[in-house]
């Protein structure tokens, strides 16, 4: 009971935060740039054209009304219209969101086996050859930004050997072709995420492998791999679950860069392009959606943290 109340409180707080975030986004994106009509139509535009532009975007109304209308429309699923193309923002944002979701899901699917393999190799052969290989790899993953990892993967797997296409976006037909097209960007995201969690899991595995019950299991004749998978791994995985939840929040920013590297038509690419051409309604919608997912991921990671560490159910976590 206590647990569910805590989860409900956390979700309610998340919704309040999202409302405040929407106000901040609307203020920063919609108000700071000054005269949007001049920006979009150019300095030589007539006063009448600018006035019509303002009317079309409701820029002549008070800020508070505009915000309320925008938010009300957003809740009802009407995101406004793109300044540059005039098409509904929803028609631009929704396919992009779907594309980003597919990419992220694939990245998470790759992330689990990569993390497990790297951590197991590092823990089982700790301090020896295989460990130093995986440790070096994860260290590189930690210190290189995602756009460099992506570029290196392109050269290795799209240019040197033609296993995967370098551009992820266009015209792949069918499930397997699409999967092949987005393998490199997904692998880039997975590499960045698993670099951190593999180090985490390796060190907690090493710690668990030194404990008494592992010795007992080994001494009673359990096979080495059974000891590792049945006895050590379940006990070492909890801190890694927390890191995985944090990785979810990395993913939302990481996807922006990786989509640009691979020209993948996702939400991040849409956001970057829309910022460049100052398409304010699209920027607002994309930013708000990304923030909503980010907040949801944070709520989720908090709930996971409470579920896997019963201690947190009784004491309020330190803020």
């Amino acid at each position, binding site marked *: 009971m206590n647990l569910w109340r805590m989860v409900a409180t956390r979700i309610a707080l998340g919704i309040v935060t999202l409302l405040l975030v929407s106000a901040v986004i609307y203020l920063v994106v919609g108000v700071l*740039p000054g005269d949007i009509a001049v920006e979009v139509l150019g300095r030589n535009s007539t006063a009448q054209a600018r006035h019509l532009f303002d009317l079309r975007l409701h820029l002549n109304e008070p800020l508070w009304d505009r915000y309320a209308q925008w938010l009300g429309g957003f809740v009802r699923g009407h995101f406004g219209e793109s300044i540059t193309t005039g098409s509904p923002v929803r028609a631009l944002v929704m396919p992009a969101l779907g594309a980003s979701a597919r990419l992220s899901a694939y990245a998470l699917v790759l992330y689990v086996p990569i993390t497990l393999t790297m951590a197991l190799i590092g823990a089982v052969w700790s301090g020896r050859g295989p460990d130093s290989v995986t440790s070096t790899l994860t260290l590189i993953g930690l210190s290189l930004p995602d*756009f460099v990892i992506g570029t290196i993967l392109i050269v290795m797997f799209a240019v040197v050997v033609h296993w995967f296409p370098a551009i992820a976006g266009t015209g792949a037909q069918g499930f397997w072709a699409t999967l092949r097209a987005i393998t490199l960007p997904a692998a880039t995201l997975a590499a960045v995420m698993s670099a951190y969690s593999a180090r985490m899991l390796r060190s907690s595995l090493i710690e668990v492998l030194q404990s008494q019950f592992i010795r007992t299991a080994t001494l009673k004749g359990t096979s080495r791999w059974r000891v590792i998978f049945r006895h050590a791994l379940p006990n070492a995985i909890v801190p890694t679950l927390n*890191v995985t939840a944090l990785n979810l929040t*990395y993913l939302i*920013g990481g996807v922006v860069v990786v989509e640009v590297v691979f020209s993948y038509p996702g939400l991040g690419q849409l956001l970057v392009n829309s910022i460049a051409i100052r398409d304010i309604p699209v920027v607002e919608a994309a930013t708000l959606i990304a923030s909503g997912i*980010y907040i949801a991921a944070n709520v989720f990671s908090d709930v996971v943290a409470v579920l896997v560490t019963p201690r947190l159910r009784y004491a309020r976590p330190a803020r």
Partner: protein
Amino acid sequence: MATIAPFQAGLRASRRRRLARFRAAVPSTFWVGAVTLLLFLLIALTANLWAPYGYADIAGVPIQNPGWSHLLGTDLLGRDVFSRVMLGTAPVVLLSLGSTAVSTLVGALLGVVLALRRGVADALAMRAFEVLISIPFLILGLVLIAAVGVANGGGSWLLVAVVVLIYLPRTTQVVRSAALGLVESDFVAVARARGESRRSIVVRELLPNLSGVALVEFGVRAGYAPILISSLAFLGFGAQPPSPQWGVMISENRSTFASGNVWAVLGPSIALALLVTAINFVTDGVARYLDRSTVRVP
């Protein structure tokens, strides 16, 4: 003089002991990182004195392989890659360390004051920071730069402001939660009873006890700042061409990477990786000595 000498000797001995303890606590990677970081600082401060070419100079035929005249070859416009990597060190290193230093100093002070005062101001500030943290940081940076105008995006002050705005809420939260424990402790109560002013409690009692937290916080954030700044530049929202900032170099030469323009991409990438690794090694060593975690919420 004679009366002070033993005291000074004692001080010196205790300093030597502390140094010995530090040496025992930090792994060898700390020293590797420290030396590398010093080299980067040296390059950042002196590169414009000895770099063979200027960052915008057309030094030869485009896309040459490394050789004696061009240590890392030339990029797609024929500029000397080695010179550009060296000259690009200053903006990356100084912007990263500088902006992180500003956000850590302000964040530490703010965190302590908020923890000491509590009340409405504290609640409001923490709520506001939570809202800022709830926007993915890269997207927040992009939107801020877009709001000011992409054309002004290369300005160092704008980049510093963006990094500070991203880091400040996070640092303040970390320092504040560490300070909350200290505020209740006896030595603060004693200082209050002694009639120390609030400023004196902050500066003389609380801040010295939080320097470890702030130092590790600085290291962790500084280790990510080069990636953040380069990512913004890579996406076209940070430094603009012909700046030699590493993110710009990678973004400019990436399209011709496959057709042999390898070093113009690898050069800045390796420099970036070395810098980040060096900062992380140093931070890791300090954190181990202070027995603190380097795990952070993004």
